[in-house]
């Protein structure tokens, strides 16, 4: 990490050093026939993080690995798995890092979801003397 990084848009412009010459997986770039299934898959893919990219969802990445993950998602959806099950399958392996949606049931994310409530309370408290009481 301490080495001098001089990265310009590493995540965007994939260097041409190939990631394999194999054609992309079936469902990497093909939609499911069932529109409802595809919608569920697409929504999930937006929220899964590409493992080899600089902060992109697998839906937005051109990396081969992201293509394989899209294939995995679509195939499992087609088999009847729920998006939550697929997300859990990946979280089991890669941790919460792989999901862009912080899970409200995990304690590590409680501060994130408490923040809006807390901040609004603090804001309210800060202005408590700024306003005149409504006249009766």
């Amino acid at each position, binding site marked *: 990490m301490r080495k001098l990084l001089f990265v310009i848009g590493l995540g965007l412009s994939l260097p041409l050093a190939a990631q394999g010459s194999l054609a992309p997986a079936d469902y990497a770039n093909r939609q499911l026939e069932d529109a409802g299934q595809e919608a569920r898959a697409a929504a999930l893919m937006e929220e899964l993080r590409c493992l080899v990219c600089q902060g992109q969802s697998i839906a937005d990445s051109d990396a081969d690995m992201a293509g394989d993950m899209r294939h995995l998602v679509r195939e499992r959806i087609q088999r009847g798995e729920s998006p939550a099950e697929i997300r859990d399958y990946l979280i*089991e392996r*890669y941790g919460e890092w792989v999901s862009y949606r912080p899970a409200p049931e995990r304690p590590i994310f409680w501060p994130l979801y408490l923040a809006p409530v807390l901040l609004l309370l603090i804001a309210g408290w800060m202005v408590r003397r700024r306003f005149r009481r409504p006249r009766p």
Partner: protein
Amino acid sequence: MVRRFLPLLLLLSFVGIAIWALTAEREEQVRSKLVGQPVPAFALEPAIEGKPGLSSADLAQSEGPRLVNIFASWCLPCKAEAPLLDALAGEGVPIDGIAVRDRPSDILAFLDEHGDPFERLGNDPRSEAMIALGASGVPETFIVDGRGVIRYHHQGPLMPADLPALRAAWEEAR
């Protein structure tokens, strides 16, 4: 009085976090969470003729620990770690391979050029086994003990500097 300096406190905590982020040795990759867990189920076809494929069952019924190396013929760092794997295989360490998004002809050419340390070699054209194991790229190496439990995970090419840690984990997995 204290309240008026609260923003300053917030700034200092931000600076603290930033200094940590700049100086700490941070993980560059995502570790597999499966270390300590049984190998998840997968079954891969043989990648090349004349060598058996690889399945989780093979790993679960092994005499002792095994190395599982995830690699690809198109990956440059894999070439860098090849001599070390060959040397380990020469010492008698059982090594199985998973070839990711690869073609048999390319794999054969790779093994011809860089040596073939693998007892079994599974073909993983869709990265399914790679994802099942929680690996996020190539090359990565796992130690799986005789009962099929993942004991160690190394990301990136294996270099001589990584050997002590690998050997320690290996001894523990026996």
